[in-house]
């Protein structure tokens, strides 16, 4: 197992070596792995440097913002831990993709938005909808397939929607949400609002035509859309290196003449600040941005993934930079968070999750006639 996968912080400049014609694919992969491998000492130094950087960022923000970001990350983590339990009890069905490990991405990015900005994402959508402001009650009820769910029990885990907070959905076809977001941004510009659209997708979605077609249109027509690639380094059981020729996702932006940035997804404040810059560019200049946010999922691809394609040691390496632990520790070291405040956050989260579970349990099943509602906005006449 190469060290490559445990270095989420550095973008790998691999374009030149990849262009070497005549080299076999296998040789290229090996060469890339070799150049990207770093020793444990180097890794420690890098972790220390990242810690230093987050502490500097902490100084630039007010306590309320910092605590709000921490609260949201903890909320998502505990919410999903309970959802996983409910899944194993059979209360939640179908596919259920957990976000644990990636919380800093949704929380940091959405923290940089105005409430009227738009968000779209993939099927791994619990974190984004909670961070956008959908009530945990309604998210949990949706996972339970209940009438009180944010999609009326019809969408389930993969299809959370909440028009009330401009959360335009979880989408289950890999890459499908990217053109949709481009259209949402087009509409904002068309109507002359200064709303910004954020769209999240995995690194495997970057291999879909939908990604490339969307980036081209967004830059061509100067659309206020921010494309956020959550690079957790795996698409199901396939590692990034096995599926993508140029693995520096942020380097795909120049191909479309678009601004691009590489971001440390284990540092909620790096995500927050990078997204702020992109939002500014979108809001004031109506220009798109591609952000590659390097992160890692701690759990399986979905609840049913045995995860044989990576080692426990690899996962543990990444858990050393658990975004919640890192942030909490740095806040404490900077004197911005004491034990009482942390306990308060945990307590409020516990109550919110408990309420959500109770709401989901007690919410009724959708009525049978709901099977035939919401198919058309203008239903055909019944008497026709």
């Amino acid at each position, binding site marked *: 197992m190469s060290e490559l996968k445990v270095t989420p912080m550095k973008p790998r400049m691999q374009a030149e070596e990849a262009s070497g014609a005549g080299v076999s694919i296998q040789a290229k992969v090996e060469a890339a792995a070799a150049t990207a491998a770093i020793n444990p000492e180097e890794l420690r130094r890098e972790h220390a440097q990242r810690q230093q950087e987050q502490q500097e960022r902490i100084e630039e923000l007010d306590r309320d913002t910092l605590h709000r970001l921490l609260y949201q990350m903890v909320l998502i983590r505990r919410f999903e831990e309970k959802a996983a339990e409910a899944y194993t009890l059979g209360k939640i069905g179908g596919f259920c993709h957990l976000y644990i490990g990636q919380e800093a991405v949704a929380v940091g990015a959405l923290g940089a938005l105005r409430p009227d900005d738009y968000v779209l994402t993939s099927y791994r959508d619990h974190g984004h909808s909670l961070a956008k402001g959908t009530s945990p009650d309604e998210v949990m009820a949706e996972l339970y397939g209940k009438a009180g769910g944010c999609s009326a029990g*019809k*969408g389930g885990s993969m299809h959370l929607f909440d028009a009330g907070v401009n959360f335009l959905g979880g989408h289950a076809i890999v890459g499908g949400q990217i053109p949709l977001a481009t259209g949402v941004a087009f509409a904002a510009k068309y109507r002359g609002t200064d709303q910004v659209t954020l769209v999240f997708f995995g690194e*495997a979605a970057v291999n879909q035509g939908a990604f490339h077609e969307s980036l081209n249109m967004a830059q061509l027509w100067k659309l206020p859309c921010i494309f956020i690639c959550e690079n957790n380094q795996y698409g199901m059981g396939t590692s990034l290196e096995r599926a993508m020729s140029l693995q520096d996702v942020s380097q795909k932006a120049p191909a479309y003449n678009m601004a691009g940035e590489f971001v440390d997804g284990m540092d909620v404040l790096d995500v927050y600040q990078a997204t702020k810059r992109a939002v500014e560019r979108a809001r004031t200049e109506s220009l798109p941005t591609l952000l590659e946010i390097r992160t890692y999922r701690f759990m399986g691809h979905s609840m049913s993934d045995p995860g044989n394609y990576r080692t426990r040691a690899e996962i543990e390496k990444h858990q050393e930079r658990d975004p919640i632990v890192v942030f909490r520790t740095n806040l404490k070291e900077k004197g911005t968070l004491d034990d009482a405040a942390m306990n308060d956050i945990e307590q409020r989260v516990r109550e919110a999750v408990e309420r959500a579970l109770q709401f989901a349990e007690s919410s009724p099943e959708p009525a049978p006639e709901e099977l035939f509602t919401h198919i058309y906005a203008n239903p055909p006449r019944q008497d026709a």
Partner: protein
Amino acid sequence: MPVITMREALNQAMREEMHRDENIFLMGEEVASYQGAYKVSKGLLDEFGDKRVIDSPITELGFAGLGVGAAMVGLRPIIEFMTFNFSILATDQIVNSAAKMLYMSGGQFKIPIVFRGPGGSAYQVSSQHSQAIESWFAHFPGLKVVMPSTPADAKGLLKSAIRDDDPVIFIEQERMYGNKGEVSDDPEFMIPLGVAEVKREGTDATIVARSLMVPIALKAAEELEKQGVSVEVIDPRTIRPFDTETIIRSVMKTNRVVIAEESHPFCGVGAEISAQIMERAFDYLDAPVKRVSGVDAPMPYAKNLEKLAIPDLPRLVAAVREVSYLD
């Protein structure tokens, strides 16, 4: 004969054919290292190596088109869709390239390719991941469409599909992968495309069922037998080419037909079968042909609604009683 699962039967078909012809390769998402999202390709990477069993990026339009191109110049690709929901991204290459290449090149380029994977309803995965889209493909001349309902059919039909010189859409049912049955291990065991099978003989009514609906139709027939109705169950097995003769023969005998399908009814395969019966055997019908289909609504997530959306045993039994004027 050995008893194996549908999953193993499909695996055997690919393995045997890949041994026979080295122009065959398998490409798709997670087919190699991961051994298949549904483990249908288990062991094939070890046996044939990564030249012939290839994990693709999530790039359905791309690798479907790659397959068609490779087929134009002599390879015989098996392209696996992780599920047929994702084949929707590849329909341009399937419909505009694979289906029409032979015709628009005046017979110069045949496309011996198989597009296969699970389709139909799956458990509680909502609208985008739970749908039966065989009628889309069956609509187009140039494509062949296969939907097996038993492990033996799965193996025999897949081997025929692989040896066929035309593009074949081969739709498996995810819920059936674990179903067991006797399957021949003769490497020349084949089931020809375009031949229906009478899965159970009867005299009073005919159920035409495919894929997941076949075991349910057989259960319905058992139940109806107790009620004094003798039901014939026919599985067309291939939607294109379609074996109209076998069905017409049955209609002439039973004079009553129910068509069972998971897909939406509107413009579905059941509508086509019904039209053919009407055109060819109208005078033999004692009751209008009845369809029992998936409901005319996208698939909901909630368990209670999902149950209402998919045809089940009671609906099928009721439909046969209805065409038999028993209630």
